[in-house]
């Protein structure tokens, strides 16, 4: 092997490191990923002393030929089987970059490990065996890389020695694979003919491929660029937690897009709460920072003590994410059990976790033929599918192309992350109109000097709506009246607002049949009453709509004040609706009332006793 020494060989290794970049090496099993990696280290002289000797000794012991791949296959089992089982990360400094190179296994059954490796990467080296050509698995890897958000790809056509370094073989593979990637909107930066085993075009250009004038694999790494565009995008700060270790109430999270500065007004989605950034907090930083940008884990304090919690996404006014209970997404499934409709999964998007179901399976994506429209009733392990989801609560999100980190999610089945997805489309749900109304009304709301926190401190409880739902003649109204009496006797501010009381007055202009409008008006009245700090009690009796629909509509309008639902039924039903409390069978109303009061204490609506300062973890 002769030829020109690549320029990078003259670059000393003690250049000041300026940045870190994650690169993943993917490819079909046996296409030579670990060998390429081993070669890269050995030929740049970046292996620790004795590492090659140690592996050579192990090979001799086992009567095997030395292979570069063994340098990074750590486990005995991996070396014995000659395969990579789990993703390994190795460090490699070249120029003024520190690379973390992720060697991802190529077996189909190890796809979850490949995905784990690739999801961390900013760029990928994709390996194809010159002798075997483009395999299904190579296409699947290309598809997954595009879904995982790895946009920079260099293709290495390896094992060129096995095809006699023939240009026509290389050009054929180059054409076929480039055309495939183009359908995924991926354009490879380079396609490099190489032989990792023989050290051809890895760190030095070789005479064996005189027809190739592009960079070596080593040089191609420096052509990958680090994504810095995120700071130009609209701000997204998914809240991770709220701390009160000392006098400061600090909201923490990692900015996923855009930037913020002291004095900015933030709006939190989906609650629509809003406040101004007072300080940016930091430990061992002097003077305190005045601004922060994408990628930073920050802590901020606000000028007002609004109630916000983990999962909400902070954004600037009028630039917030979508809010809906439905969206369409492309999903890859890694679970042991297939992904099915009518099963509940936990969806995690940024720091939010919410139960969800698949409502439609549009098609299974065939990696081999992307246009194929194969339909199915479930998604099997290692398949990619186009799906519509329905979440149990409103979710704030973006589409993947507008804001990457808030446009993707994972699905958890039981204890395990079992799939990942990127959101392609927001789907308006039936709450959209009410949600817009609430957002616009909240952003124009004129506040007095007294906030919800002060009211809660005085009253010994937070505001809430307690809604009794269930079939007729289950004594919902009786229990609601009883609860009101007991609460008021305890000194709480509770009020029974029967929707019947709106019918001849506020609702006089709408007919009996306009149930949707009646619920909307009830919700707006409840919004006013809860803003005064009141506990509002009601039954769903007067509305001619299902209890769940009513509760959801009121919740959307009074958000983030909670709606507590009490479902009452005379007999055990096979499928009980979601409710905070469910009562079945004959009632002991005194006991039920006590039970409701206990529940209200548990979930932090009622303080333990009136007069005592309520012990809320955070402000209201």
């Amino acid at each position, binding site marked *: 092997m002769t030829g020109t020494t690549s320029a990078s060989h003259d670059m000393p290794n003690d250049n000041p490191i300026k940045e870190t970049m994650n690169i993943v090496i993917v490819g079909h099993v046996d296409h030579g990923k670990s060998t390429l990696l081993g070669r890269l280290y050995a030929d740049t002289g970046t292996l620790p002393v004795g590492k090659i000797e140690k592996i050579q000794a192990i090979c001799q012991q086992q009567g095997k030929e030395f292979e570069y791949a063994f340098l990074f296959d750590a486990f005995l089992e991996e070396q014995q089987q000659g395969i990579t089982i789990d993703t390994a990360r190795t460090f490699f400094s070249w120029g003024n970059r520190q690379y973390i190179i992720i060697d991802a296994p190529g077996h189909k059954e190890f796809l979850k490990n490949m995905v784990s490796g690739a999801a961390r990467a900013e760029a990928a080296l994709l390996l194809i065996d010159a002798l075997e050509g483009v395999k299904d698995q190579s296409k699947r890897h290309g598809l997954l890389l595009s879904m995982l958000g790895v946009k920079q790809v260099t293709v290495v056509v390896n094992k060129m020695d096995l095809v006699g370094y023939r240009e026509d073989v290389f050009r054929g593979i180059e054409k076929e694979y480039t055309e495939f990637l183009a359908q995924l909107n991926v354009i490879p930066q380079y396609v490099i003919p190489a032989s990792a085993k023989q050290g051809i075009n890895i760190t030095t250009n070789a005479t064996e491929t005189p027809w190739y004038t592009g960079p070596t694999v080593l040089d191609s790494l420096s052509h990958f660029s680090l994504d810095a565009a995120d700071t130009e995008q609209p701000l997204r700060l998914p809240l991770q937690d709220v701390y009160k270790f000392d006098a400061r109430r600090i909201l923490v999270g990692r900015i996923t897009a855009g930037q913020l500065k002291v004095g900015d007004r933030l709006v939190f989605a989906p609650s629509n709460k809003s406040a101004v950034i007072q300080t940016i907090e930091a430990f061992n930083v002097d003077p305190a920072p005045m601004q922060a940008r994408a990628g930073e884990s920050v802590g901020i304090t606000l000028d007002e003590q609004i109630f916000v919690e983990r999962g909400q996404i902070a954004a600037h006014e009028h630039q917030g994410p979508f809010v809906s209970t439905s969206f369409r997404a492309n999903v890859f499934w890694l679970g042991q059990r297939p992904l099915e409709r009518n099963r509940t999964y936990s969806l995690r998007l940024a720091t939010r976790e919410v139960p969800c179901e698949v409502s439609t399976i549009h098609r299974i994506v065939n990696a081999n033929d992307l246009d194929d429209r194969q339909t199915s009733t479930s998604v099997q392990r290692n398949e990619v599918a186009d799906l519509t989801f329905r979440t149990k609560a409103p979710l704030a999100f973006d589409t993947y192309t507008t804001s990457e980190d808030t446009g993707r999610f994972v699905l958890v089945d039981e204890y*395990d992350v079992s799939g*990942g997805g990127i959101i392609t489309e927001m789907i308006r749900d039936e709450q959209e109109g009410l949600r817009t109304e609430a957002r616009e009304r909240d952003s124009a709301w004129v506040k007095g000097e007294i906030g919800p926190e002060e009211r809660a401190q005085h009253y010994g409880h937070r505001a809430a709506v307690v809604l009794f739902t269930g079939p007729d003649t289950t004594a919902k109204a009786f229990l609601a009246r009883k609860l009101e009496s007991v609460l008021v006797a305890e000194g709480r501010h509770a009020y029974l607002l029967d929707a019947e009381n709106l019918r001849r007055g506020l609702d006089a202009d709408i007919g009996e049949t306009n149930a949707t409008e009646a619920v909307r008006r009830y919700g707006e009245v409840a919004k006013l009453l809860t803003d005064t700090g009141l506990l509002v009690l009601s039954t769903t009796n007067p509305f001619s709509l299902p209890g769940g629909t009513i509760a959801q509509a009121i919740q959307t309008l009074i958000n983030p004040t909670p709606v507590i639902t009490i479902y009452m039924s005379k007999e055990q039903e096979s499928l009980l609706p979601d409710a905070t409390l469910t009562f079945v069978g004959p009632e002991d109303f005194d006991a039920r009332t006590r039970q409701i009061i206990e529940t209200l204490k548990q979930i932090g609506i009622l303080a333990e006793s009136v007069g005592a300062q309520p012990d809320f973890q955070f402000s209201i």
Partner: protein
Amino acid sequence: MKHLRQLENQSIFILREAYKNFDNLGMLWSMGKDSTVLLWLARKAFFGHVPFPLLHVDTSYKIPAMIEYRDRLAREWRLNLVVGQNKEALANGMNHTRGRVECCTALKTEGLKLLLEEKGYTGIILGVRSDEDSTRAKERYFSPRDKNNEWDFRDQPPELWDQYKISFPPGTHIRIHPLLDWTEINIWEYIKLENIPFLDSLYLDQGTGQRYRSLGCEPCTFPMKSTAKNVDDVIIELKNSKVAERAGRAQDEGRGMEQLRKEGYM
């Protein structure tokens, strides 16, 4: 410097995820450079506070300066220090002459297991790094351990897009590794950048022409030849070194580390 801030932001994010999602959380602190950087990052993540206990599995064979340093920082930084020890093994005379892997298993792996059982921790934060040895290169940030504290490297959960494993069956626990992406040089660069107090009497040459590169038990940890007298010297020395970091740690020889880690070693 930008690369250190990248690493810092990622580690702080992981620490905050751990604190939010685990009710019974502890952080291992061996007083070495890595876990001390981790402790510093916790103070950054929680604005000067460390809202969980720091656990030290004391083999009784540690270098005395380490214990002095531990107690001093615990006082100054108001740390909740919890020390665990396999007293039974020590009473039965366990030491390295009975076999290094045997000794590590009894005093460290078992010592840790006893501490976990006693306190019922469900999340343990550790300062292991991918570049320390090749089994650690295959770790996840949030890595499950079964009821016997064992690590099943063949079937690790997927980990993507900062979504970690935070739900797990009762009786098992999660090891949390915020420093996985840091190299040995990054650790020293960060110590310098943030001016973090470290055990300079051991990590720097005190005029004897040698220093420790990695700290452990006195009988099994050996200093290396070095004239590095400050952090800058250490960084230059490491950039020009091709000797493995843990070359001075006797228990790593042969397949020692793979076996140890599978069974629950840090």
